């Protein structure tokens, strides 16, 4: 029993970290633009496809497949997805920042469909699942007979590092200060010489890059990626952000950990729980929206959702 609990605790922290990274993007974008970017999950899940395509292209050009190619392609995918986020913001999302919430919802859902269909049609055999390797293999150490993988350690370490970097960026740099100011009062931010465009670019670059890391870790955790993984990644990331409180960075982390905790508990203790673990997750989302619409640590979202 102890071993089972330990194993599930490791799974919980690993999965919770990935969900927290997904939720951070939603919260960051909502915090600054007041728009819920429903295609954020789809943007994040383009990263594994870009990494796979990049690794294959490097192998074709430079020689046999090598782990180094995948590592390079993974890094390139993070930057590429960051740029994709910036382009999507400029082309589509920022146009809806002052529009009724329903318009932003429809536009970002439609954008998600466009992204998924583009992957399906442009990526070779895009409708099929594609194997995605564990980015880091092997066992780091045992705790009471339960192996702790390097991958799990890397996921938790990378999440902590990214959260720390994001916090430092927002609180210690001039552009971070401007982003926080614009998220509180965009009109007065403009009076203080803060350009909306720069703030939005920086926000989308960060949110989409962090989303890309989450997408890569998600695919690596599952061992596979599919063109429609973005739907689930988006729903879970959004739900985690809602549970924690949209716009709240700590809330995103708490929300990610809560959702992963419910999934793991359902799989472990409920008979056939793996099949309907999401029922528990989304029941919690509904409960939070009914009883605490601002989320556990967030500000109210009644007007925009």
């Amino acid at each position: 029993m102890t071993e089972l609990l330990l194993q599930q605790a490791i799974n919980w922290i690993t999965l919770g970290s990935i969900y927290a990274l997904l939720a951070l993007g939603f919260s960051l974008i909502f915090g600054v633009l007041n728009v819920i970017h429903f295609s954020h999950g789809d943007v994040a899940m383009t990263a594994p496809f870009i990494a796979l395509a990049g690794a294959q292209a490097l192998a074709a050009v430079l020689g046999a497949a090598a782990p180094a190619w995948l590592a390079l392609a993974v890094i390139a995918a993070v930057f590429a997805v960051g740029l994709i986020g910036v382009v999507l913001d400029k082309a589509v999302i920022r146009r809806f920042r002052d529009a009724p919430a329903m318009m932003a919802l429809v536009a970002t859902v439609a954008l998600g469909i466009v992204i998924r269909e583009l992957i399906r049609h442009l990526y070779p055999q895009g409708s099929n699942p594609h194997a995605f390797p564990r980015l880091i293999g092997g066992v780091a150490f045992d705790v009471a007979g339960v192996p702790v993988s390097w991958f799990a350690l890397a996921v938790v370490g990378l999440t902590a590092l990214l959260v720390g970097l994001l916090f430092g960026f927002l609180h210690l740099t001039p552009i971070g200060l401007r982003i926080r100011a614009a998220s509180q009062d965009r009109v007065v931010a403009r009076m203080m010489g803060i350009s909306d465009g720069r703030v939005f670019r920086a926000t989308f670059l960060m949110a989409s890059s962090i989303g890309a890391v989450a997408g890569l870790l998600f695919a690596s955790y599952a061992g596979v990626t599919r063109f429609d993984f973005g739907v689930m990644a988006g729903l879970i990331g959004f739900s985690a952000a809602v549970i924690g409180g949209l716009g709240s960075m700590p809330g995103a982390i708490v929300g990610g950990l809560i959702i992963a905790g419910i999934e793991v508990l359902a799989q472990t203790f409920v008979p056939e729980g793996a099949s309907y673990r999401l029922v528990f997750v989304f029941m919690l989302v509904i409960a939070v929206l009914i009883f605490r619409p601002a989320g556990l640590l967030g500000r109210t979202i009644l007007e925009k959702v």
Partner: protein
Amino acid sequence: MLELADVDTAYGAAPMLRNVTLNVRAGELVCLLGPNGAGKTTTFMTACGVVRAQRGKVRVMGNDVAALGTEKLAALGVGLVPEGRRLFPGLTVIENLRLGYDAVSNRGPKFDLQLDKMSNLFPRIRERLRQTAGTLSGGEQAMVALARALIGEPKLVIMDEPSLGLSPKLIGEYFEITQEIHRRGTTVLLIEQNAEMGLRIADRGYILVKGRVAQEGPARELLSSKTAKSLYL
């Protein structure tokens, strides 16, 4: 410094300003007065480009504000104090002031010097620098909002009803500081409801009624004018 020429504005179908012409020359302290709903805040928002004029021109230091954009005004040397202070409530006082300073230009180490100056001008905020702005009292927020506009040493300051909600003692203090800023050479457009105090420190004044300029002239004349008296005094 600031010129509104034949400006009309509207919120949707509701007209707000009609044919408003207003000038603030370099070195002047001009007071814009008007009762509630006269269009004072709309004038402020139009002057800083947040609300677009449907007709007419708004120029700041010869630049067309519509073409320039609100975010470029600070770099020209315009300090803005919006109605209700509108500090960034989740940021500390020092962060609010830093934004005001950086808005003019990023002048690095001089910030500490300017911060010292502001702390001398507004002793009340010296002890509050590390405090979150949203937790300050109304009077302290009013001082920080003015300090935020002044810390970059602007050439022109536009203030929208800064005395609103302040105690009589604080109002007096606030008007003294405004007068002091003007004495040091800063051009000021003071948008106010407190006609008597506003006109006592102003060079010239405008009275706005139902979106139109009902009267304008030297502050002393306005103080004794029938329009001003019927509205305020």
